[in-house]
C-alpha cells in the first residue's frame, strides 16, 4: 500500500509486471474510487472554464478536457460526459477539492458525488467481462444496470486499451468489483496503472502537467477547440493563443532509452553537445517493450522525433531518443 493524494492505495497485488500484462492481454480491474465525480447542470457555465467544445458534446458522449487558469496553465485534466440532464466530470483525486473551489468560486453550481465508487475495467477482454456495455463505442457513456447495480459506464480509460470506467454508489462498489472479478477480471494496482498510462503516452497530473505547463507545450492541443480559441471565450484563451502564435518554448516528448536502466522524474535531459534541454517528468521500465521509457520537457528545437539525447542518471549519461507517442499503440474500439 502507498499513500496517494491522501488515500491509501494498493501499489500492486500480484506484481506490477503481471498486472500490467494482464491488462494488455486480458482484463484488469482498478479501483479508482479516489477520483472525484461531480455533476454540472449549467453547460454554458462549464464552458467558461474548459477549452473543449462543450456545446458540441452530444448526450451519450464523453470527452477529455482541461481546467485552465488565466495564464493557460493546467489546473486539472478531466473527463466530461454528457448524461442528458447534466455533465458528469471525473476529476483527479489530488485536485478535486481545488477544482470544485475554483468552479464554485467563479459562480458555477457543482454537485459533488465524491462518495461514489469508480472502477476501471481495462484490456482487450474487458468487453467479455462486461457484455452489458457491448453497445458502447470509445468515449460513449450510458446508464446501465450490472448485476442489479445502477452504474454509469463509459468506454474509456487510462491504459491505452479498450475498456470501461464504471461509476456506482459507493456502498455498491465492493459488490460490483467482486462480480467483475468473478467474471474473470484481475485486480491491478497503482503501479501497473502508471506503467500502462506511460506506455500509452498519457500525461499524469502533478508529474507531466501542472499549473506551470500549458496544453500546447504538453502536446494536448487536441483538447483545444479551434473555434473556441478564436472566440477566446474561456479562461486562459488569450494566453494560449499567444503560446500558439509564438510556438511553445518547450515540448513534452516521449523518450526511449537504450540499455535497461530507467530514468525517473527529475533526471536532467541534455543534448549530445552537453547542453541542458529539460527534465524527465515520468519514467518507468516498460513491461511491454522490455525497455525503459520516459516523458519529459525539452527545448522546442530538440522535440523532433529521432533527436538523440542523454538522460543523466546517477551522474552518468544514458543515451536515448525522442520517440513518437504513444510508445505502445492504443487499442480503442471506435
Amino acid at each position: 500500500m502507498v499513500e496517494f493524494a491522501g488515500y491509501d492505495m494498493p501499489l500492486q497485488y500480484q506484481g506490477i509486471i503481471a498486472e500490467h500484462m494482464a491488462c494488455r492481454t486480458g482484463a484488469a480491474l482498478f479501483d479508482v474510487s479516489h477520483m472525484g465525480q461531480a455533476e454540472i447542470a449549467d453547460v454554458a457555465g462549464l464552458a467558461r472554464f474548459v477549452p473543449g467544445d462543450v456545446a458540441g458534446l452530444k448526450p451519450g458522449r464523453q470527452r477529455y478536457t482541461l481546467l485552465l487558469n488565466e495564464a493557460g496553465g493546467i489546473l486539472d485534466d478531466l473527463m466530461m460526459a454528457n448524461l442528458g440532464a447534466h455533465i458528469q466530470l471525473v476529476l483527479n483525486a489530488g485536485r478535486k477539492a481545488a477544482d470544485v473551489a475554483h468552479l464554485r468560486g467563479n459562480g458555477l453550481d457543482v454537485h459533488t458525488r465524491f462518495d461514489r465508487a469508480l472502477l476501471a475495467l481495462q484490456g482487450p477482454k474487458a468487453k467479455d467481462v462486461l457484455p452489458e456495455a457491448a453497445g458502447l463505442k470509445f468515449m460513449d457513456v450510458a446508464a446501465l444496470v450490472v448485476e442489479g447495480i445502477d452504474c454509469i459506464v463509459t468506454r474509456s480509460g487510462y491504459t491505452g486499451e479498450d475498456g470501461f470506467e464504471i461509476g456506482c454508489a459507493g456502498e455498491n462498489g465492493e459488490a460490483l468489483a467482486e462480480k467483475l472479478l468473478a467474471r474473470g477480471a484481475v485486480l491491478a494496482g497503482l503501479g501497473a496503472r502508471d506503467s500502462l498510462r506511460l506506455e500509452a503516452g498519457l500525461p499524469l497530473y502533478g508529474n507531466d502537467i501542472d499549473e506551470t505547463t500549458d496544453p500546447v507545450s504538453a502536446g494536448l492541443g487536441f483538447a483545444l477547440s479551434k473555434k473556441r480559441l478564436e472566440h477566446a471565450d474561456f479562461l486562459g484563451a488569450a494566453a494560449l493563443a499567444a503560446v500558439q502564435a509564438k510556438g511553445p518554448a518547450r515540448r513534452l516528448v516521449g523518450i526511449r532509452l537504450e540499455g535497461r536502466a530507467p530514468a525517473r522524474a527529475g533526471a536532467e535531459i541534455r543534448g549530445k553537445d552537453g547542453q541542458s534541454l529539460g527534465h524527465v517528468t515520468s519514467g518507468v521500465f516498460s513491461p511491454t517493450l522490455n525497455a525503459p521509457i520516459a516523458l519529459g520537457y525539452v527545448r522546442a528545437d530538440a522535440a523532433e522525433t529521432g533527436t538523440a539525447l542523454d538522460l543523466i542518471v546517477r551522474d552518468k549519461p544514458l543515451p536515448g531518443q525522442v520517440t513518437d507517442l504513444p510508445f505502445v499503440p492504443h487499442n480503442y474500439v471506435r
Partner: protein
Amino acid sequence: MSQIFYSKDHEWVAVGADGLATIGITDHAQAALGDIVFVELPEPGRSVGKGEACAVVESVKAASDVYAPLSGTVAEVNQSIVDEPAKVNSAAEGEGWFFKLRLQDPAALTELMDRAGYDEFLGTLS
C-alpha cells in the same frame, strides 16, 4: 556454507571458505521492491565503506540503492543478475547474489544480525 549474517538495510552476508563475503539482498527486500528490471553493480577492485551505496536495483517503478554491509574491497560481481535481473526476485538469497567483498575486518561480521535477529527486526517493521 558458513553462517549467514543480515543487515538492517536488508542485505545478507555469507563468508565462504576462500574468506570472501558474498553479499545479496534478502528475500524480504526483493519482495518489497517488486519486479526487478535493472541491476548496477560496483566495479571489481573498488573499495567500499560500511553503509556506502555501491549497487542499484531498479524495479518497474523505482530505484533503490544497495549498501555495503561492511567495509572491504569488491572482489567479484554477479554478472548473471545484470543479464537477468528477475533472478534477484526468484533467488534473492542464493543465485541472485550481488557481489563478493574481501572484508577489511572479518571480526566486524559480529556487528550484523543472525537469522533470528533479522527475523525479530522484520517483526518490528510495518
